[in-house]
């Protein structure tokens, strides 16, 4: 499109030049004048067949152009002189009474044309190619002066009448034959100018090509003398500034990202030099091995070809150092698959500087994205997924319904790599700019905008199978064929809602809260060592299930008896959310701003109240859970008798036995500081405290049951307890059936 408009601009310019050269009132009319031009074309074809053979093909190549060129000319022409063109008659002659009658003149004109063009063409072929300023174009205007047929003579006389009225008078005096010859002359000149225009365009293309070629040569030379690092392979010489093409220029992007990162590091008062020394330490640290193995495994599969093969060696080393440095910096997060993709992109922006890349990475992961986005079993990511489903339901209800029907889990990959693996790099960089400025909610917005675009095609999918095949197609298209226009996308991202996204904070809180009602007990389970991921896998199971149920309300094998309650509970929760969401979304004016905040808070406090007051219900609930656990333990005992005793089972028993009874036993070690995060307003109503006081009495029975548990229930047990906890804690008594 850009080149197209510049082409048109060029034509405008040429028009002006030509008009200027051949006199203001030369009768230079619309080049698209159909019959005149096609006549010229016919003529060209016949004459060229003989002599100027090498000119035929380029001209016929471009012969399709003139119709498309016609658009700019009327404006440029009419602004210069009052000659709006009509196809058959020149409207300049307002009162002209003649029609046709130019048969006599045409033969003369044709002869002259042949003569003129041959001489002209021959001269041009001589020194044309390398002399852009050849005099051919300038001299062509002289060709009109030298013409001596009646038409040109009359036209010249006409041109000497400077005002329109004089010209009209002049024409009114003329006989029809004379007018005919004038028309003929005008047409002739038009076609000549058109041909000239075509030549100019071709010449421009040729020069452009030549320029390109020269640039390529310089690029090749530069690359030849470069040290041949990865950044050098993308080195390209150009005389055009690249500003404005890629969001903002690479240099500025780098500077802005670094400034933001610096500001963050400053705010947490870090001695950056020291950190750098530690993070990029050449000697290996004790825990480097565990960190490093996975990093090394993933280096070559980062997704960009730069990191593959022999020549990627250097880049892989840099990437590895950055990833390892981050893992050393933040041991809790360490390395998560997908970091390599992020780091690779960051390295590209920081132009290979390891320290800068680390800075940006720290800023991005520690500050910009929610805490635990990549750590702690991707907890915050799961929260965002749940939040996203809610947002999708509000923004794109039909699609959401459809996706729900397909049982499609939200696309984690988009979020984990921040779209780096699913959109073209330029778009991704724009998104990242926006993320750095506006925060992680941009990711949700972008995902919404993408679904909005894909929605139509997804709606054709009838099955999950279908959906995945379609998605794979779409993903390919998004990545390679720019299915998604980046500026439109960003426009939608910014226009879909005000910043910060209404309700987002509340939703995130709600799901964080919902997913881990007892983050403290989770921690106590994993107290063996935060670094080993296996330790809190069981706690995580809770998370997973509540995410799934929270999102879909489909419980599957979650539990025969509890399922209906849970579903009811989920539904009710959803309704609450809907209410909370819809009201502010419906009214977007300033007055509703207060209400927006108020609503969920009210809901929250209501729930809190319910929790703290329903101690009786909790007790009943707890007794029920306990009974079930015992039942289950019995069943499983029976089952394990059938199972062969193997080393797997033994190891399992060992690893997961502390988890079995985490509802009953694990609370002793629970550290206090995590609790405030879970609870919102009501201090005394903390769910943790309620349960704790409640269950301490029964802890003994619980611990007694432990040895009975086989590995299978070990992992299952917490699930049920989650469900029960949810029910017991949040559900009103009326909906919890008595056991």
């Amino acid at each position, binding site marked *: 499109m850009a080149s197209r408009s510049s082409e048109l601009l060029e034509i405008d310019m040429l028009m002006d030049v030509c008009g200027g050269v051949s006199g203001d009132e030369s009768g230079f009319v619309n080049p698209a004048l159909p019959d005149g031009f096609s006549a010229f074309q016919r003529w060209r074809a016949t004459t060229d067949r003989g002599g100027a053979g090498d000119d035929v093909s380029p001209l016929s190549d471009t012969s399709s152009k003139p119709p498309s060129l016609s658009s700019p000319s009327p404006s440029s022409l009419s602004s210069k002189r009052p000659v709006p063109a009509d196809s058959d008659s020149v409207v300049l002659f307002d009162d002209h009474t003649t029609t046709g009658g130019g048969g006599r003149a045409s033969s003369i004109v044709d002869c002259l044309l042949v003569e003129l063009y041959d001489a002209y063409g021959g001269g041009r072929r001589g020194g044309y190619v390398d002399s852009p300023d050849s005099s051919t174009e300038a001299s062509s205007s002289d060709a009109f002066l030298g013409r001596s047929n009646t038409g040109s003579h009359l036209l010249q006389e006409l041109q000497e009448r400077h005002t329109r009225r004089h010209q009209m008078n002049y024409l009114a005096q003329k006989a029809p034959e004379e007018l005919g010859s004038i028309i003929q002359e005008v047409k002739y000149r038009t076609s000549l100018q058109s041909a000239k225009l075509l030549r100019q365009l071709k010449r421009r293309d040729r020069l452009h090509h030549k320029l390109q070629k020269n640039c390529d040569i310089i690029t090749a030379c530069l690359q030849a003398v470069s040290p041949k690092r990865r950044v050098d392979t993308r080195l390209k010489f150009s005389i055009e500034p690249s500003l404005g093409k890629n969001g903002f220029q690479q240099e500025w992007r780098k500077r802005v990202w670094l400034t933001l990162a610096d500001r963050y590091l400053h705010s947490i008062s870090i001695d950056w030099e020291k950190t750098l020394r530690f993070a990029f330490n050449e000697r290996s640290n004790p825990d480097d091995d565990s960190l490093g193995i996975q990093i090394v495994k993933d280096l070559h*599969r980062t997704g960009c070809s730069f990191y593959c093969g022999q020549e990627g060696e250097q880049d892989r080393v840099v990437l590895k150092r950055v990833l390892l440095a981050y893992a050393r910096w933040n041991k809790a997060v360490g390395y998560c698959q997908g970091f390599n993709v992020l780091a690779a992109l960051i390295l590209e922006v920081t132009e290979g500087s390891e320290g800068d890349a680390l800075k940006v990475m720290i800023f991005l992961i520690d500050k910009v994205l929610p805490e635990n986005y990549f750590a702690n079993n991707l907890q915050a990511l799961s929260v965002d997924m749940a939040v996203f489903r809610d947002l999708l339901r509000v923004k794109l209800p039909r699609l959401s319904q459809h996706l729900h029907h397909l049982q499609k889990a939200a696309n984690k990959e988009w979020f984990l790599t921040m779209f780096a693996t699913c959109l073209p790099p330029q778009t991704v960089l724009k998104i990242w700019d926006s993320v750095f400025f506006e925060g992680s909610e941009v990711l949700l917005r972008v995902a919404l905008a993408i679904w909005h675009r894909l929605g139509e095609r997804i709606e054709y999918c009838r099955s999950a199978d279908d959906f995945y095949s379609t998605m794979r197609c779409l993903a390919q298209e998004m990545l390679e064929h720019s299915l998604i226009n980046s500026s439109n996308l960003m426009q939608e991202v910014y226009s879909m809602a005000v910043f910060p996204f209404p309700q987002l904070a509340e939703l995130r809180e709600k799901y964080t809260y919902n997913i881990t009602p007892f983050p403290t007990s989770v921690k106590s389970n994993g107290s063996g060592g935060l670094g080993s991921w296996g330790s809190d896998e069981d706690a995580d199971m809770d998370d997973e299930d509540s995410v799934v149920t929270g999102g879909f309300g489909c419980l599957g094998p*979650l539990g025969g008896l509890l399922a209906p309650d849970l579903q009811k509970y989920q539904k009710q929760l959803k309704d609450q959310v809907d209410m909370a969401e819809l009201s502010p979304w419906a009214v977007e004016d300033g007055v509703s701003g207060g209400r927006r905040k108020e609503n969920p808070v009210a809901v929250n406090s209501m729930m809190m109240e319910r929790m703290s007051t329903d101690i009786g219900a909790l007790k009943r609930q707890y007794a029920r859970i306990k009974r079930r656990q015992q039942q289950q333990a019995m069943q499983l005992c029976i089952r394990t008798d059938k199972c062969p005793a193997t080393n797997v089972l033994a190891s399992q028993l060992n690893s997961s036995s502390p988890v079995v009874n985490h509802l009953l036993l694990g609370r002793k070690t629970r550290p206090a500081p995590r609790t405030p995060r879970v609870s919102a307003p009501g201090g005394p109503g903390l769910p943790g405290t309620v349960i704790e006081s409640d269950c301490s009495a029964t802890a003994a029975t619980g611990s007694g049951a432990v040895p009975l548990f086989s590995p299978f229930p070990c992992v299952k047990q917490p699930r049920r307890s989650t469900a029960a906890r949810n029910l017991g804690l949040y559900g009103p008594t009326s909906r919890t059936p008595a056991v």
Partner: protein
Amino acid sequence: MQCLTATQYETHRLTDFLFKFLVIGSAGAGKSCLLHQFIENKFKQDSNHTIGVEFGSRVVNVAGKTVKLQIWDTAGQERFRSVTRSYYRGAAGALLVYDITSRETYNALTNWLTDARTLASPNIIIILCGNKKDLDADREVTFLEASRFAQENELMFLETSALTGENVEEGFLKCELDPERMGSGIQYGDASLRQLRQPRGTPAQNKQQCNC
């Protein structure tokens, strides 16, 4: 697009069974490459590591019946297991992959097995797959050791190579060849056949209990 969907729908109608299949195992064991080899018959040279879950499907013919395999390829890194877990539900079979050149991936098998046994249907058919057979020189896990492990845990076992394609087909098709043991992953198909394929020794009631 619509046309494609129509044909896809057609394929659905024509297949007798739909199997949900899972590929699990530690990071870098070659899960995605196995899947790619199975579906495309090619080795994926510069494959990206899986983030979250990827999907592939293939229709195979088993004993005169067309079976559509719906294969979910999961991410291997430990912290992605929470993501992986939601995919176990309803899986008929799982390919448990380890790398014969890495004892670490072998050692992690028990964890994966626990997940599969607890989260999937109890009748799930698990095939233990020692991948990278072509790198025999770097072998860290012997065939004998792994097959003993498989025996102890009632798994089918074979060693594969996603690079050469050796045993890949067999790995994926092994559970279909044992119709007696077909799990509950069948989503639709011939009702009478499905009854026949009720797993032995597992009454329906029992199944329900295990699931809860």
